[in-house]
């Protein structure tokens, strides 16, 4: 590309260069302001629905529907939350969502790391076949297994039970994939040293290797917890009475039922569903971003 380059774009280029090496001009140190303006506008578009949801959930119903809409609440009230937790059964739904998500996450952590370790570090016949079968199912759309799963769970008598909500999600290929990738990267010498010291194979896995897999376990744990917490279709068909509803199911049913016109209430419900995962995400986002990059690139 030795052709003519117009001078103005050269200036832009210099502006866009990150601050590496000795600065040649002041303008080179920071990217152009326009980039920050555009990125900020983008972030506003992305976050505005959430900010608006939070602000509206503490407005009285009349203000939520006022025309023109208010931005900041003129009257601050927690009545929407009070109603969610007193009149509606949101504490139960919250508990149900938590139970399902925690058990599903623990199952994936335990079983995923067990198989992941075996695939990464142990010799056995059929190893490659197991790996191929597990990963091969990644392409299968959820709808393919949906109907037979429902038939299976019905015949096991597990509709409207916690096991019915949990069992189909207790293991997933993602866990095996993530844990295997991580264990492959750990040195074999650790295992050999432990064998020399007389540790059994199971003990090597449990007491030597698993404690070293913290970052991968954290990534897998967060990804699984979020997916389970937000899962919608399966709990919608399996949970049939109110005492088994998870949060998304309850919120979806309320938003088409007799409360459908109480926007303040529904928005407060949305806050209850969304805020725990946002807090969790903020607390551990380092692992999360790592996880996306790991599952994406490797």
């Amino acid at each position, binding site marked *: 590309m030795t052709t003519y380059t117009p001078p103005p774009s050269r200036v832009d*280029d210099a502006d866009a260069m990150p601050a590496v090496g000795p600065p040649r001009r002041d303008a080179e140190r920071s990217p152009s302001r326009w980039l920050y303006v555009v990125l900020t506008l983008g972030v506003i578009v992305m976050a505005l629905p959430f900010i608006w949801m939070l602000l509206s959930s503490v407005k009285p119903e009349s203000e939520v529907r006022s*025309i023109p809409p208010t931005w900041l609440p003129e009257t601050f009230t927690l009545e929407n939350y009070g109603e969610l937790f007193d009149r509606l059964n949101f504490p139960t739904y919250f508990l149900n969502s938590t139970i399902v998500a925690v058990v599903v996450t623990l199952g994936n952590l335990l079983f*995923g790391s*067990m198989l992941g370790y075996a695939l990464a*570090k142990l010799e056995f016949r059929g190893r490659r076949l197991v790996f191929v079968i597990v990963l091969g199912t990644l392409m299968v759309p959820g709808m393919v297994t949906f*109907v037979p799963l429902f038939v299976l769970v019905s015949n096991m008598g597990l509709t409207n039970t916690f096991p019915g909500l949990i069992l189909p999600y207790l293991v997933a290929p993602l866990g095996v994939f993530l844990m295997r990738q991580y264990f492959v990267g750990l040195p074999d010498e650790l295992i050999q040293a432990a064998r020399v010291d007389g540790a059994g194979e199971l003990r090597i896995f449990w007491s030597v290797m698993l404690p070293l897999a913290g970052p991968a376990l954290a990534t897998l744990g967060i990804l699984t917890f979020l997916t389970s917490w*937000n899962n919608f279709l399966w709990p919608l068909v399996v949970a049939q009475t109110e005492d088994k509803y998870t949060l998304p199911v309850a919120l979806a049913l309320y938003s088409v039922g007799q409360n459908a016109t109480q926007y303040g209430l529904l928005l407060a419900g949305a806050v209850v569903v969304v805020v725990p995962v946002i807090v969790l995400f903020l607390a551990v986002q380092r692992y999360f971003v790592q996880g996306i990059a790991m599952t994406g690139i490797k």
Partner: protein
Amino acid sequence: MATATRAPAGRPTPAGGTPGGRRRRSLLQRRQARTAWLLALPFLLLFAAFTVGPVFASLFMSFTDMRSTDVRTPFAVDLAGFDNYTALFQDELFRKVAVNTAIFVVVGVPLTMVLALAAAVGLNRITRLKAFFRLGYYLPVVTSIVAVAVVWRFLLQPDTGPINQLLSVAGIDGPDWLGDPSLALPSLIVMATWRNLGTLMVIFLAGLQTVPRELLEAAEVDGAGRWQRFRHVTLPLLRPVLLFGAVITGVGYLQVFEEPFVMTNGGPLNATRSVSYYIYDQFSFGNYGYAAAASYVLFVAIVVMTVLQFRLLRPKA
């Protein structure tokens, strides 16, 4: 591999007595294999019961006339050959939902990719507030679609919704976004883009960070402008990442279900009903065999699309 230094992988150990060293090795190998299966067993049992089994059961069901009344006797159903499949392709509604889904993919995938790439390139340039911006763009990904739908349905309301209120300030008479058959699907595509671009942005950002700085600097020394460097240096190096992004977004959008389910109930006039939604409907009507056939058609569509994407985007040798 733990023993690969001494024993080649997968070779069966010779039976019978062998000198000390080799006997120890075979003992270790046997112990390893036993441990491996012990560790693999819980996963494999659950996986066989709740994933692999249903995949094949679904294929079998798609060739039967199974209905919800046969739930207790799933193996006593009658074989129906390809009846479900022929009925499916003759159903006008199925053709409609297939077209809707195709539009969702053909419009949604490029839109999501371009915006995610733009955001990633932007974020890759800046030094300050990078974590903040990344977080902001990623936020919609981690949130529940049901909660998001509650918010968006209100924002998009024709008369009282904040978006149309804002438009009316600018003198524009905002349309009924979700109620107009020609606007409902585009509105959902935009919403899906908003919700999914964070995932691709993080993946693209990781890819951009692997582009060697020296290459870009060399191109600059040769006089390549910013666009030329992006077009001829960055983009070719990003190809595998772009391919991956196109595949996961395409696979996701082909299965679109939750957005229309919680936003429009598939309406108006089936304008937003997708293939997955159609399968769910058939399941609710009790047509299990028919629903399974439709799900396998979707499966084949996913495989075909992925193969096409690999053909189009594969890095050239």
